[in-house]
């Protein structure tokens, strides 16, 4: 079984609301949408962000955009204006999601 970094398959953007971060994940090729849905589950994303995200992770499918939207709760050290972190607005969560290793058959 071979594998690639998610970065090879998709691009992403993240943003904040309160103590929650969301990440939009968009495959470069439409045909990879099904693969992303199979591989990039809410569970895997929750594990991927261990140490940064304290709450639950929910995934929404957005078929008209061929995209997934991940909502990460308890992700911002209390929220942008309470956080001690350099990335207090969660702008880098999308890029950090793309560090995930995805196995391909």
């Amino acid at each position, binding site marked *: 079984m071979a594998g690639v970094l998610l970065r090879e398959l998709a*691009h*992403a*953007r993240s*943003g*904040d*609301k*309160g*103590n*929650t971060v*969301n990440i*939009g994940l*968009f495959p*470069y090729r439409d045909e990879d949408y099904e693969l992303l849905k199979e591989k990039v589950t809410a569970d895997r994303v929750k594990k*991927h*962000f*261990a*140490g*940064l995200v304290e709450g639950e992770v929910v995934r*929404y499918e*957005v*078929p*008209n*955009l061929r*995209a997934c*939207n991940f*909502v990460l*709760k308890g992700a911002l*050290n*209390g*929220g*942008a*204006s*309470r956080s*001690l*972190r*350099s*990335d207090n607005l969660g*702008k*880098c969560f*999308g*890029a*950090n999601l793309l*560090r995930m290793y995805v196995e391909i058959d």
Partner: protein
Amino acid sequence: MKSVRIGAGQGFWGDSPFPALDVVQAGRVRYLACDALAELTLAILQKARQKDPARGYVEDRFFSLLLGPCRSRGVKILTNAGGMNPAGAGRMVYDLSRGMGFKGLRIAVITGDDVLPRIGELKEMGIDFSDMETGGNISAIEDRILFANAYLGAGPMVKALEMGADVVIAGRTADPALFLAPMIYELGWRWDHWDRLAAGILLGHLMECSAQSTGGNFGADWWNIPDMERIGYPVAEVYENGEAVLTKPEGTGGRVDLETVKEQMLYEVHDPTAYVTPDVVADFTSPSLQLDGPDRVRITGMKGKPRPQTLKVSIGYTDGWLGEAMLRYSWPQAMQKARKADEILRKQFSALGLRFDEILSEYIGYNSLSGPLAWGEGDDLNEVGLRIAVRTKNKLDAAMMPRLVPPLALNGPPTAGGGGGGGMPRPRELIGLWSALIPREQVEKQVKVEILEVD
């Protein structure tokens, strides 16, 4: 079929005014909508108002640059720059306009989003203000509240346009409603045209963060975005039936295509089937997007559901202090030196009896933007910066901590560059945000729209 062109002028307080000028001069727009209020901006404005009751609105060069070109081209401006003091912002624009001789210019001021003075009364009515994120009880923060403002919808802004306003100044307003209001006014949309209102909200959402739909902050091939030094802000061409094209002014940089638009479409969105705003619940999984020529994306088929009976109130409260300091080290062993400095500082905190609620050590050049996801151990980096940040309820402790850092240049590991540190930033007050829902009629009954006409 009737249509209207609306442009984006601002994505946050501090955004560049020059792309807004491009929108006014080359965007063929009739309206310019400007979002100046991020979630925490009201905290800054409230502190300004506490020091001087005449302040508390967004004070920048924006209006002095934009008023003239908008006046000469008949472009109307909508903004939430009123912040905590829309009336003060109205007077500022009035004075500016009068100074420029813009006789007859009509400035609308919208008030009524501030619910702070009424929290006690509303609680007695049974409204509990529990936090939407945590479910927490507001009594935990009630004595530390800085501001409490409801997000208003497009209604008061439409009313202002009906009263002949050239400039509409609001305080806290749902960001996309700044863009929706002129669509309702120009295209005659009804308040139960849910699909059209939802289309307007989607377009507003795509424009409220300025260049984020035209190639800014773009995660795919960002290096191919043309002329980012003169990036164009989004312009929407909206039709009576709710169909629309998102584009940007001719001659500007940036790119409008399916990828740049899709990224912004999910930005700061939670459930995409229910994007809740005061005027409509929009379903972002419904529309289809098609490329409609260079830098044009056509959006059709948008669906919406009836508006909620509640409005969201955003409450800010003081929540302690942040103290921070930085120290940079050179190769060789840059990472090891920075880690050693961190160890020394933490021992000194203990020795001095400085007890912090939280200490965060980040290594710039290694993990300050990725935390535990950083790869490797940071061996053999050219340089590493230690940034140490602390949380405390005590302002003096937050101010004291950075003073321990400069001596390390002489007393600690070698090669602390950059003048021995990153300076000594002053402590910053931390602001917690709390969101609650209240019945919309409790807010709507206190909303006022007033017109100032320049004489």
